[in-house]
């Protein structure tokens, strides 16, 4: 985001503190991204719609308390969305679902210069099933939402080094299991 865009966003936030209608602009801007993020963790359209509404409602209710913490405003929305998803799974006591797009998996495999076939995909799904949930969340934010480690740490309420460690451990296990040459894109 450019500096002008960032300043524009903060002016909207300032106005939203007095007038909830002003927050609508941020709602329109981020709704799709938040929806996709939540959908990837539920695979249920109606549930995703509920949780997305709840995310923006919580954000609007707490807009007075929003403070810049060195990460974009969108990271705050992702944090609220992540908490809403966690609350849902804790309440329902169900196993967390991760629903990932095949196109994105294919892109990542191609980046690793690996062939893409059904067998490899099935093995990858089995491998991902066995990873701890907190590791999957970091991977999802890193490779499907293109978040940097600072944002991931903020969203998941962990340290930046914790976010990096979880990613590198998952990548190590992937390399050993699949003998992949995973490139680290250096994006920090």
């Amino acid at each position, binding site marked *: 985001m450019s500096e002008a865009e960032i300043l524009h966003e903060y002016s909207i936030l300032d106005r939203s503190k007095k007038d909830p209608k002003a927050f609508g602009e941020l709602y329109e801007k981020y709704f799709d991204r938040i929806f996709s993020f939540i959908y990837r963790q539920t695979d249920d359209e109606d549930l995703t719609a509920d949780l997305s509404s709840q995310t923006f409602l919580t954000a609007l209710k707490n807009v007075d308390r929003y403070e810049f913490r060195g990460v974009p405003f969108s990271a705050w929305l992702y944090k609220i969305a992540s908490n809403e998803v966690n609350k849902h799974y804790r309440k329902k006591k169900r196993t967390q*679902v991760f*629903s990932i797009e095949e196109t994105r998996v294919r892109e990542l495999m191609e980046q690793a210069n690996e062939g893409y076939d059904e067998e490899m995909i099935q093995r990858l799904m089995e491998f991902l099933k066995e990873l701890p949930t*907190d590791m999957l969340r970091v991977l999802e934010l890193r490779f499907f939402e293109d978040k940097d480690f600072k944002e991931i740490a903020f969203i998941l309420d962990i340290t930046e080094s914790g976010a990096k460690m979880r990613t590198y451990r998952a990548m190590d296990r992937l390399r050993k299991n699949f003998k992949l040459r995973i490139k680290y894109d250096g994006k920090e």
Partner: protein
Amino acid sequence: MGRNEIRLRRHRISSGRIAQHRNYGDIMARHERDQKIRRIARTFTYFVIILIVILMFYVVRVWERKQDKPKGTTAYVEESQGPSADSRQPTAISYGMLIN
């Protein structure tokens, strides 16, 4: 950390389908409703606190009044006596008031 369920989706969810769920009007309405409930709850809480304070004030006042008011009188009979060998024996009666 237990096992997770991983599902592979062939297609991304389309922006058209996402747009069907977009409804800022609903968010605003819910937000205003929540604000109204919070305002009512806050007003009610203040009212209850004030009521409790008034009640406590009243109770203290009543207790203080009870402390100030005389509790009652006790009559005793005292018999005055003339000169006699036994000064303990009364010879006349007078009434005294003993105030507690």
